[in-house]
């Protein structure tokens, strides 16, 4: 039937190896966000003297966390991240535990749910639908739905920020002031290299153009297999650049953790079978042989 064959083509399984690396990177990125929160327990998380509500975040109307319960939630979240990092059957329950406990902590604090927290939430949904709980994913092909969700999220993230910059703030095109002033933000900025760069127009203007063009073009170019890896390389450099010039917390890590999934699955598989797999094997890392290109399934089973 033509209809079912179209459906089979749309839902043809993708190489799933990218999810294995993405899971580990995601766990490490979440760890980099989670560990420093311990320093805030008593001061903000579980603090009794500064309780707020904002918009729909009204948990503090009903439950007031003690410092001890905040520690309990933080430790449970850490254990959950351990499960995610370990992988296998512990991966999804671990992520669920981390998500729930951290959500309670963040809503208790109320005021500082950051852009990377919101990005993390969307990525968690994709990871729950992904095959990340399976072992030996380098030899498996799985449903593309979870990858679509990551793609939609990043198209929204980059596309919206890029187009808002392009359409709402002309100084992204005309001079580098917009970037210079962000590098002088009293908290996000003031890195010595950022303070220096704030006077270097020759550097700022190309960085502004590259940022806006990358972000605005991402929703289209990411689908193009030939361009996809180069686009992601530019994205990785952009996140690295942001980290060099500014203090943006774990945002870059959370975003980059999804890159192995954003990479076109066939490009990723070629990279694995021809480069990374043999390179690791030559260094004594025991990995089950990856399927060769002839093993690729033609359609869904």
């Amino acid at each position, binding site marked *: 039937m033509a209809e079912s064959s179209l459906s089979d083509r749309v839902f043809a399984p993708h190489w799933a190896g990218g999810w294995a690396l993405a899971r580990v990177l995601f766990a490490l990125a979440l760890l980099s966000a989670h560990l420093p929160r311990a320093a805030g327990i008593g001061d903000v998380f579980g603090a009794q003297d500064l309780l707020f509500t904002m918009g729909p975040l009204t948990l*503090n109307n009903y439950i007031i966390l003690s410092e001890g319960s905040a520690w309990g939630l933080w430790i449970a979240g850490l254990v959950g991240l351990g499960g995610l990092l370990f992988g296998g059957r512990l991966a999804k329950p671990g992520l669920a535990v981390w998500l729930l406990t951290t959500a309670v902590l963040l809503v208790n604090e109320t005021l500082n749910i950051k852009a990377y927290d919101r990005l993390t939430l969307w990525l968690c949904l994709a990871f729950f639908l992904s095959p990340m709980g399976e072992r030996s994913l380098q030899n498996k092909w799985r449903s593309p739905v979870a990858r679509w969700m990551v793609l939609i999220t990043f198209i*929204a993230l980059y596309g919206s920020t890029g187009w808002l910059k392009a359409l*709402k703030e002309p100084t992204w095109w005309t001079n580098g002031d917009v970037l210079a002033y962000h590098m*002088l933000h009293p*908290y996000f900025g003031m890195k010595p290299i950022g303070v220096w760069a704030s006077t270097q127009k020759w550097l700022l203007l190309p960085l502004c153009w590259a940022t806006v063009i990358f972000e605005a073009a991402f929703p289209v170019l990411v689908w193009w297999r030939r361009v996809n890896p180069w686009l992601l390389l530019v994205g990785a450099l952009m996140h690295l650049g942001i980290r060099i010039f500014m203090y943006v917390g774990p945002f870059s890590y959370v975003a980059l953790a999804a890159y192995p999934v954003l990479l076109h699955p066939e490009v990723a598989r070629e990279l694995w079978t021809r480069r990374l797999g043999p390179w690791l094997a030559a260094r004594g890392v025991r990995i089950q042989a990856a399927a060769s290109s002839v093993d690729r399934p033609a359609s869904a089973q």
Partner: protein
Amino acid sequence: MTEPTRDARTTPRWLRLPALVLCGLLASYFAVAYTFALEKDIPAWLKDHPWSLWLGTWPMFTYIDPSSTVVYAEARVDGEWQDIDLEALFPYRWESGPRYARTSVRRNRGRMQALGAAACGRLEKQEGITAERIRFRSERIAKTKGKNPQPKRKLKVERLLDWPCDGKARRPTGEVW
């Protein structure tokens, strides 16, 4: 020769339509969030539910921001005003800054009062200082390229709160403490 086993699975047919609907809803949510991200003229439903698109909106670092604001505080002890180190009293900070410096605190009298009461309490508990009053101000300056520390150019000082330490603030629950 036997063909190697291929471990390939995908979404079962009965789940494909729900999967497509889920992706469509996700894309639609983000599209609506983008449409109204920086708009001042928003529809009535969004005015009624201003938080509904927040999870899908990322307008960070979009606009030029040529000024910066820092919050300071002083405590009156034995009739004398003295500067207090807010970062020592409220040490945890995010990359965007400490909690007390957020616009959502500075622009909200109830939150500022809670901050005032907490600052009085922590001064006494952590540093053994019994303050009579505490007052907060914000200093807004024009950023100067290439300078660290930033000179206080075009300084604008705004008084945020003058709080008696025997005053009572409210918890979100309505409880006074």
